């Protein structure tokens, strides 16, 4: 899969390497900025509060 993508990148080897690095960087950025913040709501381990029902 990745080999296939790499073969279909244009240009000489150095350019394809550069494009690969940029693509990987872009994917990481999209994950960090958009995907992970969204996915986080399904993660149960971020609660640091005490049970909200107060005994009176």
């Amino acid at each position, binding site marked *: 899969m*990745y080999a296939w993508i790499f073969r279909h990148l244009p240009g000489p080897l150095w350019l394809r390497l550069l494009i690969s690095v940029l693509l990987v960087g872009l994917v990481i950025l999209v994950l960090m900025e958009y995907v992970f913040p969204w996915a986080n709501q399904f993660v149960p381990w971020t609660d640091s509060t005490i049970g909200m029902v107060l005994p009176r």
Partner: protein
Amino acid sequence: MPKVAQGTGMPAGAPPRGSRRGPLSAAVGVFGELFLTAGVVLLLFVAWQLWWTNLDAGRTQEAAVEHALEGFSAGPPAEPAEGPALEGDTFAVLYVPRFGEDFARPVAAGVGLDVLNTLGIGHYPETQMPGEKGNFAVAAHRQTYGEAFRDIHKLREGDLVYVQTAKGFYTYAYRSTQIVHPSSSEVLAPVPGRPGKEPSEAVLTMTSCDPPFTTKMRIIAVSVLESFTPAADGPPVAIADTVAQARK
């Protein structure tokens, strides 16, 4: 990266190497790559939680402190200021020298994740306000999202915790720490641990996760109000530099 290793040394324009492999082997190869990718993505998610969230939250919290301090210096708000603040409203700034020379964090109303994941420290809305007799209880993350209470276990007897509001500076002296179950809401009672009892002193309760990196238990640090410095008198000497720095 596998793609680099497999792609090197090929003459330009050569037929795709994949055509020499059987369909099964190609499918297995793709599956392998997908699993590797999933592993890397999970590691990245951990990195995002432990590191990236702090960058975002750090900026937000710094800005919130600055904004709050500007509001405070504009003079005390028109009374009554005691009404319930809107969720997400920054109404105080917390200074804990033990957590670092430059530790100044906003305290916002509400303990929903939308508050804790951005502004950092949230005030339990059912509990009292700073300086009031009873329990001024706040929560914050121990890790991630600015990890305001990362060093909560380092508090020692004699440590002072300062809460600044529009009225002035409340100085609390640290008293004790305990580890409780997440459902132990009695620690938020006006007299911590004694629900229903009439409070005689003003305390500050800080809650966070324990052990670090888990949410199994909660760590509770209780401090007692020692003194109040009106805003007009300026910040207590111990945090004067921190306040000046936070104001910029």
